[in-house]
């Protein structure tokens, strides 16, 4: 059989069913036997034991040999299916994946890169896995493939997407605060569309290139654009201010000019900004000269960022607000959002009760510092959402306004 006709999911699933099936049979057998014995030989029915046998060599041999055979069969199929995962079919498209805290970059043969893994439908794809900092793992549940990404080591997975669509990619090896957010997707496109996309990607439009590059190289996994606090210092207002840095443990104050920024990107270990861990990987040789210029232009504000407006409704969904608030007037853990904007609120501040109108200022406080003013009748259990950016908060308030009177 031509091995490229087998997809990884077709190789693994039968083994799953085989092992689960046998297990289920054994489990049901044991459970039924136990329940039957308990009822049949309950002391109320059987005041004295009716047998004293305490061993039976024949039985012992039987129930040693049979499980041995069963597990050997499981082992065989388990191993054989594992080999399918390891043997990449010929003609596979090679794509290289780089993981870092906490983002992904995929690079295609022509040098194109993207944050989502785009693959052609029906063709086997081999993804070469690299990590630049700690352990991560590439996990695509739909294709039953997973492999750790180990710094300093080359690993790979392969799979074939049977039909067009979007499939999850998760980071499956714990890697710190951003672990759960380190998700992206496989976008399986019909081959022509994939080719088309590749060609287009080769000549990207230059509208917001600097911004794009920050995403592509994973900078935004650790730095924010909007002033919010992440692993590294924010890019907002970064350029041209004074920074306190540690050079070889000695504290210095510098001005963040273009040279400094360049050095910070290429050799981040040289100056460590005070108060931050020295975890940033060096990008020497990993960012092409032209792109570096774009990034520096962007960071120094030469190219003004044009930001897309965040979507308030989506934010409310993503941040779990609707777990506690409803948008239809029903009461949940927290007050409903419906007709909240502009309404009269009774709140308690430090134990004192006050009355006020839910205007933009109040709503912003309520999201960022919910414990400052507690709405009467509700527990003070809302977590502060300080990690939302000003834009995001604004978008959420716009959304609330839409639900208002």
């Amino acid at each position: 059989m031509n091995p490229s006709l087998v997809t990884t999911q077709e190789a693994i699933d039968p083994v799953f069913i085989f092992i689960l099936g046998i297990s289920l049979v054994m489990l049901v057998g044991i459970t039924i036997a136990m329940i039957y014995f308990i009822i049949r030989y309950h002391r109320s029915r059987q005041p004295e034991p009716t047998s004293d046998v305490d061993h039976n060599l024949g039985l012992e041999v039987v129930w040693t040999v049979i499980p041995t055979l069963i597990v050997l069969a499981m082992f065989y199929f388990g191993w054989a299916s594992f080999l399918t995962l390891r043997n990449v079919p010929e003609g596979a498209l090679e794509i290289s994946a780089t993981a870092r805290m906490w983002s992904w970059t995929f690079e295609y043969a022509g040098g194109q890169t993207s944050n989502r893994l785009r693959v052609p439908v029906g063709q086997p794809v081999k993804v070469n896995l690299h990590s630049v900092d700690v352990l991560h793992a590439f996990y695509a549940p739909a294709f039953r493939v997973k492999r750790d990404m180990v710094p300093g080591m080359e690993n790979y997975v392969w799979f074939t997407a049977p039909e067009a669509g979007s499939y999850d990619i998760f980071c499956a090896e714990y890697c710190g605060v951003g672990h759960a957010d380190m998700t992206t997707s496989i976008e399986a496109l019909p081959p022509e569309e994939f080719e088309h996309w590749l060609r287009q990607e080769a000549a990207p439009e230059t509208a917001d290139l600097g911004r794009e590059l920050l995403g592509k190289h994973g900078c935004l996994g650790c730095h924010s654009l909007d002033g919010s606090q992440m692993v590294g210092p924010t890019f907002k207002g970064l350029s041209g201010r004074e920074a306190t840095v540690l050079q070889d443990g000695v504290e210095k104050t510098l001005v963040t000019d273009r040279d400094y920024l360049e050095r910070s990107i290429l050799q981040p270990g040289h100056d460590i900004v005070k108060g931050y861990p020295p975890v940033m990987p060096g990008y020497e040789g990993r960012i092409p000269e032209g792109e570096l210029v774009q990034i520096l232009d962007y960071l120094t504000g030469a190219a003004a960022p044009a930001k897309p407006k965040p979507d308030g409704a989506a934010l409310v969904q993503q941040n779990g607000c609707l777990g506690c608030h409803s948008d239809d007037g029903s009461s949940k853990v927290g007050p409903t959002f419906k007709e909240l904007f502009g309404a009269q609120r009774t709140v308690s501040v430090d134990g004192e009760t006050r009355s006020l109108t839910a205007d933009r200022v109040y709503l912003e406080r309520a999201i960022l510092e919910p414990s400052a003013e507690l709405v009467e009748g509700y527990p003070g259990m809302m977590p502060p959402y300080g990690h939302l950016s000003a834009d995001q908060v604004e978008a959420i308030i716009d959304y609330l306004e839409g639900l208002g009177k």
Partner: protein
Amino acid sequence: MSDVTATSGRGFWDNSGGRSGLAAWIFSTDHKRIGLMYFWSIVIFFLVGVMLGLLIRLELIAPGVNFLGAQRYNATFTLHGVIMIFLFIIPGVPAAFGNLVMPIQIGAEDVAFPRLNLASFWFYAIGATLALVSLFTAGGAPDTGWTFYVPFSTRTTTNVSLAVFAVFILGFSGILTGMNFLTTVHRLRAPGMTWTRLPLFTWSLYATAWVQVLATPVLAITLVLIMAERLVGTGLFDPASGGDPIMYQHLFWIYSHPAVYIMILPAMGVISDIIPVFARKPVFGYKAIAISSIAIAAAGSLVWGHHMFTSGMSDMAVLVFSLLTFIVAIPSAIKVFNWVSTLYKGSIRLDPPMVYALSFVLLFSIGGLGGLILGAPGTDVHVHDTYFVVGHFHYVMFGGTGFAFFAAMHYWLPKYYGRTYNKKVALWAWGLMFIGFNFLYMPMQILGMQGMPRRYYDYVPKFADLNLLATISSWVLAAGLLLMFANVFYGLFRGKPFGTNPWGGASLEWTATATPPLLENFTEEPIVTHGPYDFKQAGVRADD
């Protein structure tokens, strides 16, 4: 045999070795007092761990940030894992019930090295305290997971060094207990207590002790290496200076896989002791069970690589470790079959210890059978580091060892307090726990097969329903647990008096000492003339 019905008041409670108050406990070298100190500390840490489990579930009740947020969530599951593994489940059965019961079971006055035994408790107490201190000091609560994988653990700024040091100390405690038990079983058996008359609980402790002695040092050196990486930067696991992060995983699992058998073997021993008593029938296949304990201990040291199938380890190693993993399942299967056969043609009474023991058999089997999916490399690749693994290990650890711990608590503790709990309430609590348990962890196994990774504080919406079910069930489980502990603890101090041998056991702790046991256990050295499950010869009957 001496007349054991002539109780001497409060037994070992009366004699404090010339000390009073707290000192009579914390400086006592009596194995029963040490066992009780272990028991209470372990219960307290268990409750702490369980609260953290509840917090984890609260965060996971729905997608998005709910109560903890990412960093606090990571610290929570790390601490939950560390507490449950190192403070509850590894010392749980052997250190608490092993100490309480084992010397009496073999007819000894105490363990071989009583002072070392006390030292081991102190190491436990210090290690536990340090683990808690690491929460609030330096960089804050560690956020690495209980596996402390490098390079993350050598980079994070949280207080990993102290947590690791705490675990190091706890390791010492385990080593000392293991040495002590091995020497005790070899040297202090009463006349007539041959190896084939050892109760199976003692057999399982013996096998466990070997694992503790031979595997724990590897953990110790691994933790020293982490501290060295963090403090002086030796670079042994750092790819930049030629180290190999995967070697860390080897060293870690060389200990931590055998450790799961440290957790389960004594639990299996408890079950092997309880089932025959309540079926009033000699245990089926005594020798097979005893030998399979040794076999699990031995073969269990050969399979650590099954935690690393996706790590980038060589395919040859995957082959070897997978094959051996399946071999280790066989002795477990033998035990399960023997337990079930013991019920055949017996006279079964469903007292609380028996109910917990029987549910152990079921829950352990579910967890263990899930282990087979994990042992097959093809299927493990899909479910590795997903909720399937989380479900697997809660089934074997909580459903297995946890329930065995509860069984032991209902079976033996009244003997030491002389008072007992309300059986009806105990059964109700069991029912709540059993239901809550299955609806908590079965959804996790399904989620894992659907692809939900573990250690995620947030997940994609398609996983929401099962997570919600799991969280709600955790409250049912919580209610059952609370009811169970409340009932047992009330009973121990205020309950009805407990006779010398109300269950009708035939091993020495039931036939040769008073309730509560005397200070040096026996008025005269017992001479053993029959096996531990020979209820006829022992002439014992359960009270009605």
